[in-house]
Each structure stands twice: as C-alpha cells, then as structure tokens.
C-alpha cells in the first residue's frame, strides 16, 4: 500500500498553525513569576484590585484586530473583539480607564519584555524565546 508523500510530510512536520496556544510572557527574573488565568484576565481587563497589586506593571496588547488578539481575548474572557472594544470604549469616557498599551507586533512586545523587568505581554506560543519567562499558557 502506498502512502502519499505529502501525507507523510504532514505527519512528520509539526505544523506551525496547528499550535493554537498563547503564551503570557514576562521578563525573565522579573517581578512576576507565574499568573493564573483569572489574574491575567483581571490585569488585562483593568480590574482595579488586581492592578493595585502590581503598581508599576506595564501591560501590553496589540494594535488592530489581529487573529492573535482575537484568540487571546476569546480564550481569556470568552468575549469577541467587538465586545472587548466596546468594553474599553465604555470605560474610555470616564477618563480613569487603564487599558493595556497597544504595540505594533509580537517582536515589539518581546523586545519590551526583554528590556523592562515589570512588563506583561502575550505572543503565539512558538514565538516564545529563551530570554523571556512564560507566566501562563492559554490553550
């Protein structure tokens, strides 16, 4: 029985797109060691009580509605991007809103994490490098 070559190739190579995990990354040896999913959600959604525990923490997000961002929030809160955007829009009027800082791409996020000790960001799991620490992995 002949097995088609491309089928064998599919089995041999772990496909990059198949890994849907998202890593919550932070500075290696930084202020944050590991975080629960709830803690991450509280931090990203601007919960006052949680943010006060990390007064100098810089939280990073992405500009635009990328696939990664969509998957991240869906995995973290179960909400769609429009819902998340509406949420922040609602808070924006108050002047007290504290949304995450929007970065251009994952490279910029990783760069920022490497440079600063108290930064939190998220990237596709395969993009994680050895010089950053993973605080949590979202399936």
């Amino acid at each position, binding site marked *: 029985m002949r097995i088609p070559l491309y089928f064998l190739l599919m089995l041999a190579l772990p496909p990059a797109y198949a890994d849907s995990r998202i890593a919550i990354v932070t500075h290696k040896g930084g202020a944050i060691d590991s975080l629960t999913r709830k803690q991450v959600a509280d931090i990203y*959604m601007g919960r*006052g009580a949680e943010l006060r525990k990390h007064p100098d923490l810089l939280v990073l997000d992405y500009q635009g509605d990328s696939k990664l961002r969509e998957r991240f929030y869906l995995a973290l809160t179960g909400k769609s991007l429009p819902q998340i955007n509406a949420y922040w829009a609602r808070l924006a009027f108050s002047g007290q809103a504290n949304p995450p800082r929007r970065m251009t791409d994952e490279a910029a996020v990783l760069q920022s994490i490497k440079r600063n000790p108290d930064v939190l960001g998220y990237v596709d799991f395969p993009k994680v490098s050895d010089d950053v620490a993973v605080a949590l992995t979202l399936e």
Partner: protein
Amino acid sequence: MNFNPHPSLHSRLFWIVAGSSVVIGGITLLLMFFIAFQNNIQENKSQINRLMQAVEYSAAIAAFTGNAEVANDVIKGLMLDETVCGAQLFNNDQLHAASVKYADTSTCPEAILHTLYSPFDGAEVVGYLETRIDISAVKARSYRESGKLALALIVLLLIPNYVIWLAVSRLVVRPIETLTQQLEEIEPGSTARLAPATTYETKEISQLTHKSNSLLENIESVLVYERAQRNEIEMLKVLYENMAHHDSLTGLPNRALLNDRLVQMLLQAKRSNELCALIYLDLDKFKPVNDTLGHDVGDALLKAVAERLLRMMRKSDTVARVGGDEFVVILHSLHNAQEANDIAHKVLHALAQPFSIGKHTLNIGSSLGVALYPQHGEDAETLSKNADIAMYAAKGAGRNNVQLFKL
C-alpha cells in the same frame, strides 16, 4: 310668603345632589388611591428592576474595574427616576458610589438589591447595586392619578345630578309653589279653586290639585251650612229670649218682664220725682166665652184685647199679660192722680165695647184696680199687691168699674 325655618326643596335637593357627588368622588378617591398605590408599588418595583437591568452591565463594569466615574454615572442615571430615593453601587474592594434624595435614609425602607457579576465570568460576584424606592413619591403619584379619576367622576356625576335637580324643580317644586301661592289667595269657603298646572303636569301634582279642590269644595259647603246654622241659632236665640219674657199668645211682656220694667220705672221715677201708676185689669166675662165658644175664640179674644190696649197706650207705657185673663199696665210720667184715673176709665170704656171674633160678637167687661206711686207704695211689691187689692175691690163692686186703691 311667610317665613319658614325649613330649607327649601330646591336647596335641600341641591345639597343632596352636590353632597352625594362629592361623597362618591371622595370614596372613589380613597378606593382608587388604595388600588393605584398597590399597583404603583408593584409597577414601580418592576420599573426600577428594569431600570437596574438596563444599567447592570455598566454597573458590573464599574464594580469590576472599580471605576468610580462609571459607577457615579450609573447612580446618576438611576436617580433620574423620581421614584428612586437613593442608589448605591459598591464592590468588595474600594468602590462605593452612592446618592440619596433625602438626608434621612430611613424614609425609604424599600430596597432592591442586585448582585453584580463579572462581565467576563458570570459566576464571580464583583459587587452590588442597591436602589431604594421613594414610597412617598409613589404615593404622590397614586394620589395624582386617583385624584384625577375622582375629579372626573365628580364632574360626570354632577351632570346627571344637575339634570335631576332641574327636572325635580320643574316637575315638583314649581307646581307646588304655584299651588301654595294659589291656596294662599283663596278665601276659605269661597268658590275659588286651584287651577291645574299649565306645563309639566304630572299625575301626582294633578291628583294633589284635584284632591285640594275637593277639599276646598267640602270646606265651602261646610262653611255655607255652618253659616246657615249660625243664622238659625241667632234667630232661635232671639226667639227664645222673646219667649222667656213675652206671652206667646199676645206677644205682650209676661210677668217676669213686667216686674223688671216696673223696678226700672220706679227707679227712674224716684230719681226724677215722677208720678206713676200701676193698673191691674181682669176681664169680667172671659171664662164663659172660653168655656162655651172654645179656646180658639178665647185666644182670639185675648189677642184682640191686647191689641186694643196697645193702641190706647203710649209707646213708652208697658202693657203686660200676667195670667189667663189678667193684664197689667204701667203708666209713667203722669201729671196727677186724675190722669191715671182717666186712663183707667178710658180702658174700661174701650173694653166695654163689643169684640167681633169670627162670627161672634162678644161683650165682655173689665175690672180695673189702680195703685199710684208714690202714694200707694214705693216698691214694686207693695205697688203690685195694692193694685191687685184695688182690682179685687172693683170685682167686689159688681165688676165693670175702676177702683183706686184706698189706704
């Protein structure tokens, strides 16, 4: 019209009509208020519940993030409702946003508490939203609603009531007033009657008019009868008075009246020093006439004697019949004793003339006794007795003569 302390039918009816409208309005007000209040409380609770549901997401966000601005916006939004007395939004962290309508929070005991869940985790409680209901505002609203209803009902009731009032005044009051006015002008016993109503004639008013007229009819006939009776009584009174003092056969005064007149005359004579005379007269042959020719002839004879005597005397002299055939004459204001004697002789002469009674010609004579005042007595009793004595003397002297009393 006479003053009457009773209120008029008009005014009494007016107050009944107006009063009942107001009372019904008042009862409606109370009843509707009770119903409206119960309704409004329920409705208000559900309304506030809906209001809270509308702001629940924002409230949850505020509680989740601890954002006081958003929380205050939520509270402000809730406070816009007039029935919200106070609202507060708090989480188990630091957020506490609140607003109250009155300084004294105990005035609004009814509270609705909503638990706020995390926008991202429906199971996690992040805070609470509490709203207090302003019962007094609900009450005020209920009062306004029921008040409008009661007012509308009063107005609605006043229209038919006014129509009833108008109808009663036209159909009852005015006809009664007209009848009263007519009754006032009618003299009892007159032939005047009540005129039937010209407009709005009703069975009852017509019957009242009819019955009143029957009554007037009765009154008239009773009064006419009574008047006739009264006249008859007057007549009888005169008649009986006459009978008591007069002789029924001749119409001459009887003994009672004679005595009365004698006493009067003597008093008068005493006062003016007059001379008077009393003549007793007895018919000589009356008894045989009566016995042989019958009472009718006897009676006729006595009448004729009386007439003859009266014709001879002055009007002021008294001729009385005091017994069967006995007559008495009082003469007053005489000049002397002779005058009395002359008159007695004139009477004697006159009665000696024959009487024509029916087909009979009767010759009777008379015996006369004369007593003079004051010579033969100063009081009626003595004078009478003496005149009587003189008359018996005349009879004793062979009848048909005059005897002067002799002391």
